[in-house]
């Protein structure tokens, strides 16, 4: 196959590209320039956007003996990822920009361009496994290395996208990948992993958002509505956050308090005890399915944040009466749109932020994903505890 290897300049994508070459594919390395001015988003040494990373990717391609180009995806990235990130925070939600980038950039804009240019697939260094079932459907499973598994941020991919994706690292643990990089003389073998959001240079999301959006003062109140403090912008907070609340006065019971709710219009941030973060019912919207849409109540597990734990759950899909089937694609398999997903958590979860993705698993297999819109606690806490 003719394969585009998306090369970030990190060790994972370099080894993934190397494995694609070993597999006999005709591989072309591509580094995505996501910021038109490489210094505007990020000035640190790590992350997707620095000139140093482009250079590291280029050197890895040199070692592999593959052609290498930089593709300018900065307009798409600004429109689809950065704008969305800002809009979501403005609306009081907590987006996952990596997931959004996979959905809209790497496996959409990049994949579409690759296919049009005559390539067959895009290979990345994500940790996830693809298998084809007996009916020819492509299944995505968690990586062998559960600690590095990235199926959560890939849960938005459809059959079409999966059919043109290669994840050569899914069967390997990270330490082996590093050893392999060293054995292949790839200079990035010891390069540290990146953790921060790539367009926020110092990892200070709240500071970055404040700079972009300007101060928008509001109150911090307790669960009874009593004003405890003021803040400069609700987007500095996320559900479940404990640190950095700067409340001054401790709670009556002396226990730590957590962000329970963010009201986007007034900017009111509600804090309270840990127990009140616990939820057992979630409504999620805009579902995307890796395969068939579940028709009955599905006993499964859900993951509610990146690197979060799994929770056993029962998932039900309710098709909106207005959708009239218009939300199904030509394959009839991957619906997105006005469907709603309800998730009944058999194991309650804590600190679940609207805007995050709920990714639904059957064993290690990704069934689909949806965006968390609303959470609630239906059983009383005592019963849960």
């Amino acid at each position, binding site marked *: 196959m003719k394969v585009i290897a998306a090369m970030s300049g990190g060790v994972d994508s370099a080894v993934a590209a190397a494995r694609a070459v070993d597999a006999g594919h005709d591989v072309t390395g591509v580094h995505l320039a996501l910021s038109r001015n490489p210094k505007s988003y990020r000035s640190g040494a790590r992350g997707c956007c620095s*000139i140093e990373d482009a250079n590291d990717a280029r050197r890895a391609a040199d070692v592999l003996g593959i052609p290498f180009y930089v593709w300018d995806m900065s307009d798409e990235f600004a429109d689809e990822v950065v704008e969305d990130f800002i809009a979501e925070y403005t609306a009081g939600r907590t987006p996952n920009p990596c997931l959004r980038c996979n959905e809209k950039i790497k496996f959409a804009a990049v994949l579409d361009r690759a296919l049009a240019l005559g390539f067959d697939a895009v290979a990345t260094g994500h940790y996830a496994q693809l298998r084809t079932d007996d009916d020819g459907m492509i299944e995505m499973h968690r990586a062998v290395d559960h600690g590095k598994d990235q199926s959560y941020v890939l849960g938005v991919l459809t059959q079409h996208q999966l059919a043109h994706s290669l994840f050569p690292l899914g069967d390997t643990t990270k330490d082996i990948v590093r050893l392999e990089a060293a054995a292949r003389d790839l200079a990035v073998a010891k390069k540290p992993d990146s953790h921060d959001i790539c367009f926020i240079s110092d990892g200070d999301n709240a500071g970055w958002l404040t700079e972009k959006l300007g101060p928008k003062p509001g109150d911090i109140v307790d669960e009874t509505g009593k004003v405890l403090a003021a803040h400069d912008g609700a987007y500095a907070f996320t559900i479940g956050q404990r640190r950095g609340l700067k409340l001054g006065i401790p709670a009556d019971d002396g226990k730590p308090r957590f962000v329970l709710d963010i009201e986007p219009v007034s900017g009111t941030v509600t804090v309270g005890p840990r127990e009140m973060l616990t939820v057992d019912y979630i409504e999620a919207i805009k579902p995307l399915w890796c395969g068939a849409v579940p028709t009955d109540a599905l006993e499964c597990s859900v993951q509610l944040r990146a690197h979060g734990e799994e929770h056993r759950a029962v998932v039900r899909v309710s098709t909106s009466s207005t959708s009239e089937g218009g939300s199904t694609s030509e394959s009839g398999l991957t619906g997105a749109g006005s469907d709603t997903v309800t998730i009944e958590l058999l194991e309650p979860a804590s600190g679940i932020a609207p805007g995050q993705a709920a990714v639904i698993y059957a064993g290690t297999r990704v069934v689909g994903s949806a965006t968390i819109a609303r959470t609630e606690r239906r059983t009383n806490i005592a019963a849960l505890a």
Partner: protein
Amino acid sequence: MNETRDTVYLDHAATTPMVPEAIEVMAREMARTGNASSLHTSGRTARRTVEESRELIADRLGARPSEVVFLSGGTEANNLAIKGLYWSRVGADPGRRRVIFSSIEHHALLDPVTWLAKHEGAVIDMTPVDRLGRILIDDLRTSVESDPTSVAAITTMWANNELGTIQPIAEVVAIAHAHGIPVHSDAVQAAGYVPLDFAASGLDAMTVTAHKLGGPVGVGALLMKRELDATPLLHGGGQERDVRSGTISVAAIAAFAKAMDLAVARRDETSARIERLRAHLIDGIRRIVPDAIINGDPEPGADHRLPNIAHVTFPGCEGDAMLMLFDAQGIECSTGSACTAGVPQPSHVLLAMGYSDVAARGSLRLSLGHTNTRADVDAFLAALPAVHERAFAANLARSGS
């Protein structure tokens, strides 16, 4: 990927292959020891090679040997010319802070000029161009005459590196000299393709570089009138009229001279041959992609455009996608514009000519040179239909998403 393949090289404006004779001279000289500043026999021998090279290059460019300052190449020559002239002119008269330059200069000139504005108090004054990429001489005249005593220097390239459009240097010089203003011209792309006569041009300074005419990368020259005062960028051993310190590269300079000698000797024949190849190329492009737009001055000749550059806009395509697809088939060309971290930026030259951002991104620069044959052009034309189709589809996919 490591098998050797016959590359079709259509990027001679970026750099052109060294002629074998220059490689031979360079290898021979590199095997010899001798610092041209040393007083012993080896030093004198090295110095002799440098001076003979200087005399030859001066002769071929219509300059006096003492007017040839060797340095590392076009970027250094342009920096020395514009910064050196600015500092020296401002030093003599602090009221002369204005630098007039054209909107289509290479970054090796644009960037030092904007640096002077940012750090040295220069007032910069950009001359616009027409749709063919030629400066609007009346605008330049108006700009100069609005306040001639405030002008430190004027710089206008001889031929543009993306379009090949040749600039009205004689007219620029006439306007400037009426007010005693020095003029520099970056003639990097023109050397080897059109006659250059430094004395006859009236220029005060002119940039040339070896690797665009069959010599090695890493050596060039700034031609400077003997009486011109330019503040040095580099200080040290006082080589090159004390304006460019640093041990000079005898081997590179000797190879530069050899390449210059051959380029000038073969210029008329080469240019005529390349002009015919270009015509064949453009006929083919028009036949295969009828809506392709050939940019720049259509008229050939030393007052119009270089014979070797064809700059083409393919509507609905992105230049960098086409570049990649051609590259995969061993055909090498350029989008013509500068890169930032490997990302092609829309060309400031095309934007200055009034093109849209989209049109500027949808262009390729095909530049021919001494090694090209009709078979090279035919190989490009054979690959073009499929490349065009795919690049067009990719752009649709992009704008449609």
